[in-house]
């Protein structure tokens, strides 16, 4: 089955064509440069860019896959969660493309998409597995027992992990996007130099919180004078990153204790963080579990993962999807 999927929930305009578990094309037009000067994603700016980019991106996905719209068996689109104005551009586009060609349409939950990135080739992972999705928009610990859905074991109570890294990077004057900037700065730093608290460490559940770690960084910076911050920036970055990653690993560890999971998967933009990758690999090795790391371009937002989730969902037939709204 050939699917065309569209994803516009945040700041990447994405379209992809898949055939079964195989990606035939996956086009991602990043708007990072447009948001850089604002130090974060601006919803109105994102929505304007999506509208500009969505048709050329769909065209590129179709032509890279060497198919026409008439050749696809169905369409898929992210309905939420995400920025409402951004989602609406993708939903309106997908509904219109599907309606014009009388094709079925599948509405996909963005987080299910991140989980479903693992079902794609090469080395597709089959449930059951435990999946940690961490990005600028979400932090989710998902128990995956079947491909059509997942169980939310834990999620963040405040900032997303990537959002905390972004804010930390801003406090340290490291620029945007913050995750890669912190990681680069941390390379030259000592992760034990500052003892930042690890959130939710006493909490028996699987939820996350990063506000305490963030506040600790703020105070540490405030207690130093400007030249000291300059001098110790690498140590601050390394210690902050270590505290964020430590919490992610601790919750993963706790969830592995609580359930029978033969495999672990990472998703979301923060999954590109090499410290997180290393720590997760160590955890899995120690427990004798399979670790699935999807390529970076499938960790960050993309439409191939949306098509991958759609494969396992019931499509809506024309005209049942015409009145769909986005679900922020």
């Amino acid at each position, binding site marked *: 089955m050939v699917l065309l999927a569209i994803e516009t929930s945040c700041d990447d305009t994405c379209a992809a064509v898949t055939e079964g578990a195989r990606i035939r094309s996956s086009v991602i037009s990043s708007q990072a440069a447009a948001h850089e000067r604002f130090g974060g994603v601006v919803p109105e700016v994102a929505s304007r860019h999506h509208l500009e980019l*969505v048709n050329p991106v*769909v065209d590129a996905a179709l032509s890279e896959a060497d198919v026409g719209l008439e050749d696809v068996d169905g369409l898929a689109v992210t309905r939420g969660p995400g920025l409402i104005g951004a989602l609406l551009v993708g939903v309106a586009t997908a509904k*219109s*493309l599907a309606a*014009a060609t009388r094709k079925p349409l599948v509405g996909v939950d963005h987080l299910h998409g991140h989980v479903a990135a693992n079902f794609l080739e090469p080395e597709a992972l089959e449930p059951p597995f435990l999946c940690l999705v961490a990005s600028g928009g979400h932090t989710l610990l998902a128990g995956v027992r079947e491909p059509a859905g997942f169980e939310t074991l834990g999620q963040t109570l405040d900032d997303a992990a990537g959002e905390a890294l972004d804010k930390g990077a801003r406090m340290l004057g490291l620029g945007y996007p913050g995750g890669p900037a912190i990681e680069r700065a941390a390379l030259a730093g000592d992760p034990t130099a500052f003892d930042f608290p690890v959130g939710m460490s006493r909490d028996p559940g699987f939820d996350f919180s990063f506000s305490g770690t963030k506040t600790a960084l703020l105070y540490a910076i405030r207690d130093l004078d400007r030249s000291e911050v300059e001098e110790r920036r690498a140590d601050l970055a390394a210690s902050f990153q270590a505290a964020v990653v430590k919490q992610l690993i601790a919750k993963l560890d706790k969830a592995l204790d609580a359930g029978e999971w033969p495999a672990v998967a990472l998703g979301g933009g923060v999954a590109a963080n090499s410290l997180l990758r290393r720590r997760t690999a160590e955890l899995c090795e120690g427990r004798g579990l399979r670790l699935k790391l999807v390529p970076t371009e499938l960790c960050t937002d993309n439409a191939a993962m949306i098509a991958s989730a759609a494969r396992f969902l019931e499509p809506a037939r024309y005209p049942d999807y*015409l009145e769909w709204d986005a679900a922020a």
Partner: protein
Amino acid sequence: MSIVGFDTATDDVAVALTRDADAIAERQLAPPDGGRPRHASGLIAEIEAVVGEGGGWELVEAIGVGVGPGSFTGLRIGVATGRALAQALAKPLVPVGTLEALARGIGERSEASERLRLAVLDARRGQAFAALFGPGGEQVWAPLVAGPEELAERLRSLARPCLAGGSGALRFRRVLKAAGVAVLADPDPAHRVSARQVCDLAAAGAPAPIESVRPIYLRPPDAEIWLERDAR
């Protein structure tokens, strides 16, 4: 020649299908009482309905889409829909100014006669989107965003009588009247954008490459304004 036209710049979802300048079907969906506009849920459903009444997409020769100015979200839904339909069906897409369509409706009222037509939409934040047209439909002022006082100031300098309509004309009726502008009576249907006008303007207009069809925002994103303020 059949044309499907629609506009989502205001709170309405306005959709029509015309054939040789006759309206075959026309819909105007207002928001539910106290609710949000039905742009997201209503637009493509209404388009499919009028196209069905007109005999299907095979008979449609062009798509006209209202490009504002107006509600950013509404406009994006309308433009995304128009672009995707044109892309999927390989039909010409014609961008139509929402204020021009509104002015055309005002011009059809008997009160209009030889007066200038002022199309005014409530732009929120105490401002209006406005454009001015002559009796023949020619544009006198390009679309602009302004506060009521600034708009009144510009209107006072007009040498000819002027008739105003639209949500902004209702909202700023007092200021407009004080500036010597006549305003259509409250219940007049010409205060709302009619998609039939979008179809007629599209029939006379030029198709554009779909990537070049974009909303007329007139306002930058707020974040842009804050950034500029910070820089000063």
